[in-house]
């Protein structure tokens, strides 16, 4: 099959999914008695400059989360624990940075490394359980999410300060904050400075996966473990490295907000971003560009939903329905497309065989 239809199919499936999600959402709106026209009117309003910045910020965070899930997915590992890795890593980073052991941006750089190491270590627990005891990483990472929530809450109690109603870690010294990037001229809200982390991580993901021996081994093991073993890949080591890498990327998720906005870990932290990342990775087919598009779609929907209640009096929760249906229909759409491709391949093979047989028959006669 040549490249063009492949790209076409790759785009058709997610687009189809988004259309289906739109239809289902409309049906739900009709069912509840809300105005469909008002809903889409608000959703398709061109976002203001400030909201555009918000969408870019939201998408950057989701992108890292999607990337973290995708690293493991490519290896056929299901790291459901991105959420837990993100929370443990962000807490550790916020605490470390708040101690101000290092001056200025050195503190920032080292803190980011701390976050990656802690995220990797938390994911590493699941990796070790998997390679030594054969524990499914799906189960262990889900459990580790629950443990992460409890652990962080406990540590926040022990090590955090009470500020008003919110318990949070010590605020990071101002010299280590990372200023925003002015995306749109004349708009005062800024894109997180550390959004560059998302870009760097995306490029690194693409390069490592497609241009290195490690990336090849990773994809090969993901496709067929036995074939990988036969060609000399150490599968256990691959499992551990993929999980560590996934956890390290998960550790980056919280850095954008930590250095750009909150400057501490507290009870107002964004939760659930690790789960949304799984959906974004699926939507983007674990492809670095695809994940970016998926993250943008999700961030766009979430950002626009804020105006729903203000302008149309519709509960913004409806957007969660849209997002859920998008993921569901994407999976179905890809399956349909895949079956279609298999059928075409089978037909091509059958035709080639037919031709060969006809030729043989001709030669014999």
């Amino acid at each position, binding site marked *: 099959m040549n490249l063009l239809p492949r790209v076409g199919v790759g785009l058709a499936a997610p687009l189809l999914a988004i259309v289906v999600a739109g239809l289902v959402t409309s049906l739900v709106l009709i069912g509840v008695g809300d105005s469909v026209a008002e809903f889409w009117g608000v959703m398709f309003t061109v976002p203001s400059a400030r909201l555009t910045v918000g969408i870019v910020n939201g998408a950057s965070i989701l992108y890292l989360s999607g990337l973290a899930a995708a690293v493991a997915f490519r290896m056929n590992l299901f790291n459901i624990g991105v959420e837990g890795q993100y929370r443990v890593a962000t807490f550790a980073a916020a605490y470390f940075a708040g101690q101000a052991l290092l001056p200025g941006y050195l503190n920032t750089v080292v803190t980011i490394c701390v976050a990656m190491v802690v995220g990797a270590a938390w994911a590493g627990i699941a990796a070790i359980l998997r390679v030594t005891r054969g524990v499914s990483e799906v189960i262990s990472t889900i459990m580790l999410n629950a443990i992460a929530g409890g652990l962080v809450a406990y540590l926040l109690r022990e090590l955090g300060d009470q500020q008003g109603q919110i318990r949070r870690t010590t605020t990071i010294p101002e010299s280590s904050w990372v200023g925003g990037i002015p995306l749109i001229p004349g708009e005062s809200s800024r894109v997180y400075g550390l959004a560059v982390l998302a870009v760097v991580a995306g490029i690194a993901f693409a390069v490592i996966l497609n241009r290195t021996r490690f990336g090849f081994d990773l994809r090969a093991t993901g496709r067929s473990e036995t074939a990988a073993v036969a060609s000399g890949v150490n599968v256990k080591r691959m499992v551990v490295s993929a999980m560590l890498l996934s956890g390290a990327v998960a550790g980056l998720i919280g850095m954008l907000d930590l250095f750009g906005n*909150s400057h501490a870990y507290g*009870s107002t932290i*964004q*939760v*659930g971003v690790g789960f949304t990342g*799984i959906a974004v990775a*699926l939507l983007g087919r674990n492809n670095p560009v695809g994940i970016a598009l998926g993250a943008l779609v999700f961030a766009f929907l979430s950002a626009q939903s*804020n105006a729903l209640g*203000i302008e149309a009096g519709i509960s913004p929760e409806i957007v969660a329905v849209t997002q*859920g249906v998008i993921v569901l229909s994407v999976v179905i759409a890809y399956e349909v497309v895949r079956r279609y491709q298999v059928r075409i391949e089978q037909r091509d093979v059958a035709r080639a065989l037919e031709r060969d047989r006809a030729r043989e028959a001709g030669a014999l006669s």
Partner: protein
Amino acid sequence: MLQRVVRQRTRVASGIAVAALILAGCAGNDEGSSSTDDICESADGDGPKIGLAFDVGGIGDQSFNDSAYAGLEQVVTDLDGSCTDVEAADGEDDAAREERLRQLADADHTIIIAVGFIYGAAVYNVAPDYPDINFGIIDGAPPEGVDLLTNVANIGFAANQGSFLVGAAAALTTQSDNVGFVGGLNIPLIQDFEMGFEAGVKEINPDIEIQSEYLSQDDAAEGFESPTNGETAATGMFDNGADVVFHAAGKSGLGVFDAAVAAGEGMWAIGVDSDQYLTASAEQKPHILTSMLKRVDTGVIEYVTGVADAVEAGGEAPNGFVTYDLSSDGVGYATSGDFLSQEIIDQLEDLKQQIIDGEIKVPTAF
């Protein structure tokens, strides 16, 4: 074969992803939030234009948010104003809260009320950019290192005083000399309820045992939005011999009522924030002894009226810390259901007067 395994696992993953999203969607919104009789859809008077941003849980929590809404409904009607109310999404970050407030401000609302302390940082970030708009935060406080603003009011309630009275009511009702307290989040705001409750119980009988539990240390959704968590905690207390359980846990408290129903005849729950007897189901009603009223509605009405008066008279709008206590009827207790006998009510009224007169000092978490 292997390909099939890969595909199956992909299905598992997508199933989990979808489930996570659906859970996120359900958690906040199970009881028809955009109800068609929303006052904000019909009110279009020339009075103040009020924007109200709900806390997680939103309309339908039969507690904190509903009480804020009741106040909004009243004050919009009284002042012939107009309004917009918006809900929060679960697990959102401060940037999303800030964006919500900015959109309300950009939509020309003259008074914006943020329901819940979680909006603290967001309000103090937004308010300086809109000096002509008055912001009120229910249970609010400025973040560390941030000064009070002249256009922001931190609206508070002496929850410890109201909790003291329902604590006394619990102590006068219990047969087993064993009562319970279920808190949503372990933060001073909720500890204030616990301390008042405990003091009220001890005032009547120092020998009564008090079981106490918080549903979460840091996760607002787990603490205030999970009836399952509330039911688990309260069931444990009833099993351990309690016969009255007081909750300060928002929507999670609905599970406390269910636990009282399951525990059977003579087992009581005490509601919080609004008069929860009125909104409880028929089978829960016989178990709701009273409710500690934290009159968020009074807070909303008083604040909005205060701002409107100030605008009219050219004075200064309420700002800084504004606290409503027993003397201003900002807190109190409910008697719906008539489960409190006249003797008990007389005793409670006596205690109430002593608190107002300063003869009883109720301990506080602040």
